[in-house]
């Protein structure tokens, strides 16, 4: 589902215009990103949690060249779906 479809889906649900929903979605995203920069996590009920995790530096091996590389530490944004949703997919959605 690309962005366009996504926005139009929301706008039809909420009743706002596509332009407005796009703006409001952007506001939401901006707010969330700002919080991530400050290290805050964001939790949405029935959806999941976005949090920032720190990854320590690690030694990686390029499989093709076998070159050893040192990857520096970094902060990454992590998403954890809410347990109910995850289990539902885990159990019911299997092939």
């Amino acid at each position: 589902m690309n962005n366009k479809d996504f926005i139009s889906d929301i706008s039809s649900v909420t009743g706002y215009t596509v332009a407005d929903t796009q703006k409001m979605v952007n506001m939401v995203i901006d707010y969330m990103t700002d919080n991530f920069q400050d290290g805050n996590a964001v939790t949405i009920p029935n959806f999941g949690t976005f949090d920032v995790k720190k990854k320590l530096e690690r030694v990686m091996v390029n499989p093709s060249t076998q070159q050893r590389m040192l990857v520096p530490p970094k902060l990454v944004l992590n998403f954890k779906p809410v347990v109910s949703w995850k289990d539902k997919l885990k159990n019911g959605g299997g092939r």
Partner: protein
Amino acid sequence: MQRKTVEDIAGVLVSRSGLSQEDAISFVNALFDTVRRGLERDKVLKIKGFGTFKIISVEARKSVNVNTGEAVIINGHEKITFTPDSTVKDLVNKPFSQFETVILNDGVEFEDTNIGGTLEESAYNDDSVSDENEPVESPVLDKGPSSEADGRPLFDLPVAQDYLLVTERGQVSSEHVLGEDTVSKTEVEEMRTFPAASIDNVEGRMEEDICGETENKAGLYDGSHGELQESDIESYGINTESSEKEVLLPETETTVSEDNIAGDYSYTVQQDLHETTDGQQTCEDNGVSEAVVTDSYGKSDGVAVQTEAVSDEESEDISDDKDSKKKSDDERFGLWVTLTWIFVTLVLMAVSAFGGYLYRMYEVGGNMNIVSADVRISEDESDADMDKESRSSDAARRKTGPDSIKAINTVVRKDTLAKPVIAEKTTAVADNNQTADKKSETVDKRSADAENKQETMPDYGSMDIRVRTGAYNIVGLNQVYTVKSGESIESISKRFLGEGMECYVEVYNGLKPNTKLTPGQKINIPKLKWKKRRN
């Protein structure tokens, strides 16, 4: 670090688009609800400027029950993944954006690190490749103002804070960051490829060493498996305060990192930098600490600063560069200065001790190769030692134009304590007799007589070390004493000569120490003359 919720997001909508709180909340809920539905339906959902949600099917696999050890089958299932947009990714990683992955040379060991990464991270890396191919629709600068306006660090870590301040001062833009990266890469490389074990001169300061950062990180890895919880992140920051700072501060730190970094010094400067961080760490502040650094170590540091400054100009210069580079250079220099001074001091002490020893030996008079001028001086001063005859004969000798040989021999006679070398004196006398004219001959004869008188004295010094090193010369017989019953050498010598003089009595009489005396035995009491050595 706080946890934000729907209400907080709604609050932003209220303030920015005039919605009511209620409407805002329902909008937010609808938003995420759409995400969930759309994702479950289409398996992929992309939100512009944020990221991509995917549902990934995982096939069944065999595994082992960790408790029982029996084989277990994990069924095929689906999992939800989220991959942030590159924009968001960079913003989130802003505190660490100056790092780059570097190629390791052989021999560098990182035993504690998680080689290969976690499963999650690998998946993340895979996805990120596709993301980066997508156009960056919202440039970094858009996000810039909001982050710079706050100026708040990502975490409450001095690390991040220092870093942000550094970059803010440098007016971070994406271009700027990239420009820094190319320089920092090599520096980071040099920093990181340096074997941790080689800089060990700094005792107990491994945390502050750049190159010790590996070891410090090793300590951090205890209990961590590549991902940290919030509390871990905080403690990580606090623990690595110094090391991270050294790493961050300039990853702009250059070749100096290869040199030894004197622990105390670097730590102090680091502290200074850290303490000024809490608000405005300005270029002036850094300049001040720089100046302090230079002053305490002198000119040569200035030179070091200059050469580094020149090389720095290529990379966009933050004053921190000079600070840390010069600092580590100074530390290295300072250490060598200290070592040099210690060595010089030791050498001086040794030389003076040896010189004192030589001087003492000279005083004792074992050295015959003395300049005649010195000899004259010692002659004059030792006049008091001599018998009247000797003195007059000496004076006479001098008048007759003494050879240097005679003078030396005189010295030999007088200054050599209880070690009159009879042979040489005889030779001297012979020489004197041969070379001098009649007048001097007679004079010499007289002196020879004087010498002969002394010649008849046995070499007491060679017999007994106590006499040789004693304060007196035996110059003749004082009197003869008959031993009474109950007397000892000690008591007799004490009575005639004084306390501790028995060695002279023993030597003069040829007695062994503590010999028992028989009543009626005759003891010769020697006549003693003080050697008067101290000039």
